[in-house]
């Protein structure tokens, strides 16, 4: 399956990927409303360490330990697309998936006792919003790297 790969050598840390992710996953699809009214959450996050930066989101692992370890069945893999999905209604916030995610991408929504929104690879788009809108092509959507 296609996955998003970061090119850290050309990432300038502008965080436009985060902005476009928030907008894409908002109801309004409007940047101002997404930020101000909906408090839409970015599912991709830029990491920085001095001059180095790259964007990271769920890797949709071929062996998704989060799915294998989920106590409730909330974390699951779509059999058709291979996308790792999370059903917040079935999540109780045990954080077992946090312990087994080798990329540390899952975010705890402590107040609501569940995992926060995660990358869904933008099911309504041919290319995920973070990749399509990266100004420096620092994210690549490809079968393999």
């Amino acid at each position, binding site marked *: 399956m296609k*996955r998003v*790969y*970061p*090119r850290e*050598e*050309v990432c300038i840390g502008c965080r436009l990927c985060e902005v476009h992710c928030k907008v894409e996953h908002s109801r309004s699809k409007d940047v101002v409303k997404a930020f101000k009214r909906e408090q839409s959450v970015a599912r991709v996050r830029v*990491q*920085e*360490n001095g001059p*180095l*930066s*790259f964007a*990271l989101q769920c*890797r949709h692992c071929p062996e998704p*330990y989060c799915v*294998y*370890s989920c*106590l*409730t*069945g909330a974390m699951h893999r779509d059999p058709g697309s291979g996308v790792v999905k999370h059903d917040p*209604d*079935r999540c*109780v*916030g*045990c*954080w*077992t*998936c*946090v*312990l*087994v*995610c*080798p*990329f*540390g991408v*899952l*975010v*705890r929504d*402590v107040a609501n*006792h569940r995992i926060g929104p995660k990358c869904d690879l933008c099911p309504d788009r041919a290319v995920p919003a973070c990749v399509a809108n990266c100004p420096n092509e620092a994210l*690549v959507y490809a079968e*393999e*790297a």
Partner: protein
Amino acid sequence: MPKYVIIGNSAGGIGAVEAIRQVDSEGPIAIVSDEPYPAYSRPMISEYLSGETSLERMLFRPRDFYRANGVDTIFGKKVSGIDTKESLVKFANGDTLRYEKLLVATGGVPFVPKTEGGDREGVFTFTTLRDANLISSKLENARSAVVIGGGLIGISVTQALVKRDIDVTIVELKDRILNVLLDEEASRIAGQAVLKAGVKIVTNSTVKQITGQPFAEQAVRSVILDNGDEVRCDLVVMAIGVMPRLDAVADSGIKANRGIVVDRYMTTSVPNVYACGDVAEAYDYVLGINRLTPIWPNAYIGGRIAGFNMAGLETEYAGGTAMNSMNYFGLAIVSAGLVTADGQPDCETLYHLNSETNVYRKVILRDGRIVGMAFVNDIDKSGIVYGLMRDGIDVGSFKRALIGDDFALISLPKDLRKERFGISLDSPLYGDQEDLVEELVLE
């Protein structure tokens, strides 16, 4: 006749069904359980007892799981034995079921020590939905409870009882709660949180007797501790631990020590019979030996490996280890592998403790590899550490970063980071800065 028979309808059994169906879409599967309902999330019985979740939300898989996967369900029926010579599962009512491939995923049973008065009404265990229902029905007329055992089951039932406004006293044999899973520091932080919730903890203590009401002998009145102290209570929960549930394999010829012994393909000593989960002694990659690690994820993954092998796709079990995430009393704690380096030669312990915020991070290394870890309150990046431990990665060159405040994937050396992204060395995505500058200039 089913090709695949699975005894046990929980994490291991479901893991096996899903793996079998990835390989063999048609071979008939039968799943057997003495519980009368579809698979549910056993660890969620705490949320169920506290009233925070419903039965519907406890279902481990969607309602149509069995039909969609072509699984014949034999629920509410108890297995009495296995005839491995004739390849037959025998039921208590005399029925039999022939198998080609059999998975024993019978799980565990609570360990209940013989205690005077232990047969009174109001003495419970806490591992099944039935237990949760029995306790729940008792709570209307109850104000206080004694929980015997300060391990994971004890703490989870305590949290549920506290949420139901019950006064709880935990009686713990050792000198601290969660002592099997956590080191002294993490255990101390957990203990503080439990006490803050109004729970009493009595350590270095056991219950020697459960007394009855003067005019209703069968009803619980109190427990008497080994030092003679009496603790009044309306109910008692025995939460000492679980043991492999071996009754089905007795006299079957299937080799068992404390649990059923399986190889790296989850095969037992008897051909065509597999085992996984709490009933099995499977490979632990940290200790390098087979042992019981009765936790949900290991049961699912072990069942998955068993399922592949049962369906003819030879797959090796990478192994599992003790691994737990605890989210009780407002604390987030994860731990995996060795709890302490005490008594372990050649081990090195690195830790960070902020005694104001109770943020605690610890890793135990041996020969540059992680063999144990514990994170308290700041657990968000613990998965990266766990992944490095599981994959046996040499972390010697950046070991200090593992316990740092800003540890993240970006803290890993570049080659390792790329490898974990699945970017190969000869990939065009593996350029260094100069190559890319050149490429951009040429354009």
